[in-house]
């Protein structure tokens, strides 16, 4: 018989999952777990806010594709992780969040720091557990990892009451670790009908979503595009699947996609949606999205098929085996006429001139990306800076780009960068943040400094919630309200206070060499980039409009 307590059993089960580091914050209801953790070989990363801890875990999971773990105590600790769980759910990120709970006999009595986190997390998790006995842990912990990683990944919450952590448990043998279920290929008949549709199509477009990244299908997606000469668009979540300079890449579609890209979609006769879910930021007004196209839709989650747009050729399966089978069915094709048509569209709707320097925020972002190179990881917060990064970063590979897509959570960037740097210590991590967003998890600057991670935080400071202000300017008659951040916060001093060396680009005339030296220096570095407060993200599809009605810089700023 093996003897443990609920707490030591939990920690060992997590170790047996291969987890080597996790992030969290202790408190009364999870102290037994922390006591056990202190004796384990797992490295604990002490975040400064539980939302930060869960985003650190997200950063690890997003770069590695493996479930990552965070810990929080009951009550306020647990409620603090909710936003990051909802974020993981919408972007399909595998997380296992373990919360302490008040002791079983106290549940339902409004005990100190009791909240029903099981109930509260239910709509934002893939699954959740309330553990009632230490024996259940033998089943629940491996199941949590299996569920988080299987099929469409997502967050799983395990709530463990304090007395369950303390109770002794005896058992005969260790359960096998929970691993992702084997990938399933879509049914053969659906694959051949999709292949026929591709072969018959004259104007196909590949529409790649985050599922291609999560399913490890980026290489196959590129192979399919190249074999069948398929122009490809990417959602925000899929950036990097096709390198930015790939001849078949049309970049990002949707609200802030390139004009020519959205117009090409308007003309396509076959839309090949791969691991994409027809999100409204990508499709614009759905009724007018790809109006002439038949749809092939590949998704591992059956409930995504037909949800927004009826698929003519649904493919329910994992992206990797299904794409491999699809490629086998298809002969190499060349589509010169369609490519010429797209080239003409690009000439009609040219991308705005990009400068080489740093005059415009998007130029600055591209310069940072070029210096950082293809091996670097880039994380962002949410706002204009995020969209400039999406438009201008020279993407070269999947899992290079970590951004909060579905939930659009300000405060994501810095803790996610910490997680990425922990999981991949050999890579440089760049966080592109905004002055509004950074303040939402700024406390994690302490965590990063303490750990001495290789993180360069580039703050695009427009003294505003720029994206909000942009919407007020464009759609609310210029009524700017509650979108200025004019407190005169001295971010450089704040950063120094957290122990970060600082480069203020304004003080060195945006000198490229100083920037390069700073980006290439080891450890944490804070790079302050004051930018034009009037700069806007273009093009832009007004919310609710069809994608081919884009507002452009030429039209709006004339």
């Amino acid at each position, binding site marked *: 018989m093996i003897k443990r307590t609920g707490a030591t059993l939990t920690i060992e089960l997590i170790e047996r999952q291969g987890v080597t580091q996790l992030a969290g914050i202790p408190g009364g209801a999870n102290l037994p777990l922390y006591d056990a953790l202190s004796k384990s070989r797992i490295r604990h990363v002490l975040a400064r806010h539980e939302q930060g801890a869960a985003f650190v875990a997200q950063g690890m999971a997003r770069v590695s594709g493996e479930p990552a773990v965070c810990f929080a105590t009951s009550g306020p600790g647990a409620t603090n992780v909710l936003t990051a769980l909802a974020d993981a759910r919408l972007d399909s990120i595998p997380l296992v969040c373990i919360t302490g709970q008040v002791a079983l006999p106290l549940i339902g009595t409004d005990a100190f720091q009791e909240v029903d986190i099981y109930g509260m997390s239910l709509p934002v998790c893939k*699954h959740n557990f309330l553990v009632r006995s230490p024996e259940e842990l033998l089943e629940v912990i491996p199941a949590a990892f299996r569920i988080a990683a299987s099929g469409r990944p997502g967050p799983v919450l395990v709530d463990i009451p304090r007395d369950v952590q303390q109770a002794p448990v005896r058992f005969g043998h260790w359960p096998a670790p929970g691993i992702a279920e084997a990938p399933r290929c879509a049914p053969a008949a659906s694959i051949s009908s999709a292949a026929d549709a591709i072969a018959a199509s004259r104007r196909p477009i590949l529409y790649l979503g985050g599922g291609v990244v999560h399913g490890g299908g980026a290489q196959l997606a590129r192979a399919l595009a190249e074999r069948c000469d398929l122009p490809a668009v990417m959602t925000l979540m899929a950036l990097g699947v096709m390198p930015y300079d790939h001849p078949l890449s049309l970049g990002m579609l949707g609200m802030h996609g390139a004009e020519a890209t959205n117009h090409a979609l308007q003309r396509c006769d076959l839309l090949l949606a791969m691991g994409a879910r027809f999100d409204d930021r990508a499709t614009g007004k759905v009724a007018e999205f790809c109006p002439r196209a038949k749809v092939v839709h590949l998704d591992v989650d059956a409930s995504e098929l037909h949800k927004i747009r009826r698929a003519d050729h649904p493919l329910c399966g994992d992206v990797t085996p299904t794409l491999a089978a699809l490629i086998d069915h298809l002969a190499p094709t060349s589509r010169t006429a369609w490519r010429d048509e797209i080239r003409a569209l690009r000439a009609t709707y040219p991308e705005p001139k990009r400068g080489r320097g740093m005059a415009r925020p998007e130029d600055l972002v591209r310069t940072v990306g070029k210096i950082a190179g293809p091996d670097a990881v880039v994380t962002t917060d949410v706002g204009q800076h995020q969209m400039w990064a999406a438009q201008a970063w020279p993407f070269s590979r999947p899992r290079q780009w970590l951004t909060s897509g579905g939930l659009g959570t300000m405060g994501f960037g810095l803790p996610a960068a910490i997680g990425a740097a922990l999981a991949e210590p050999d890579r440089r991590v760049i966080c592109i943040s905004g002055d509004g967003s950074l303040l939402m998890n700024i406390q994690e600057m302490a965590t990063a400094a303490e750990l001495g991670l290789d993180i360069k935080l580039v703050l695009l400071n427009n003294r505003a919630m720029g994206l909000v202000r942009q919407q007020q300017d464009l759609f609310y008659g210029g009524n700017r309200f509650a979108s200025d951040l004019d407190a005169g916060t001295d971010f450089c001093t704040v950063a120094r206070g957290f122990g970060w060396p600082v480069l203020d680009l304004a003080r060195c005339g945006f000198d490229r060499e100083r920037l390069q030296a700073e980006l290439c220096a080891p450890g944490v570095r804070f790079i302050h980039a004051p930018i034009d407060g009037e700069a806007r993200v273009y093009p832009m599809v007004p919310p609710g409009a069809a994608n081919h009605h884009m507002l452009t810089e030429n039209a709006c700023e004339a």
Partner: protein
Amino acid sequence: MKRESSNDRFTVLELTVNHHAGTLSHVCGLLSRRRFDFDGIACLPMADGRRARIWLRVRDTARLDHLERQLRNLHDVHALCRQPGGDTVFSGFASRLSCG
């Protein structure tokens, strides 16, 4: 929001689920969160005590397929089948309502 009318057609979905306190929350939470109106719900544990049956009476709309797919995604749901019209689970409840 559309009110129930006498010519609405209903389907009964029969779910085999894990028998624990959270399962009902998962099922009912899904219905409200995804804007599925439901008309009736009944639940009983099965003989082994580990599983339970839930019967849901739902309006037979175009979104029913989608509801089914989302219910199947729940990890506490093991099986789901449709019993269009012919189910008797709810007739007993209905007769109690009519005797006021």
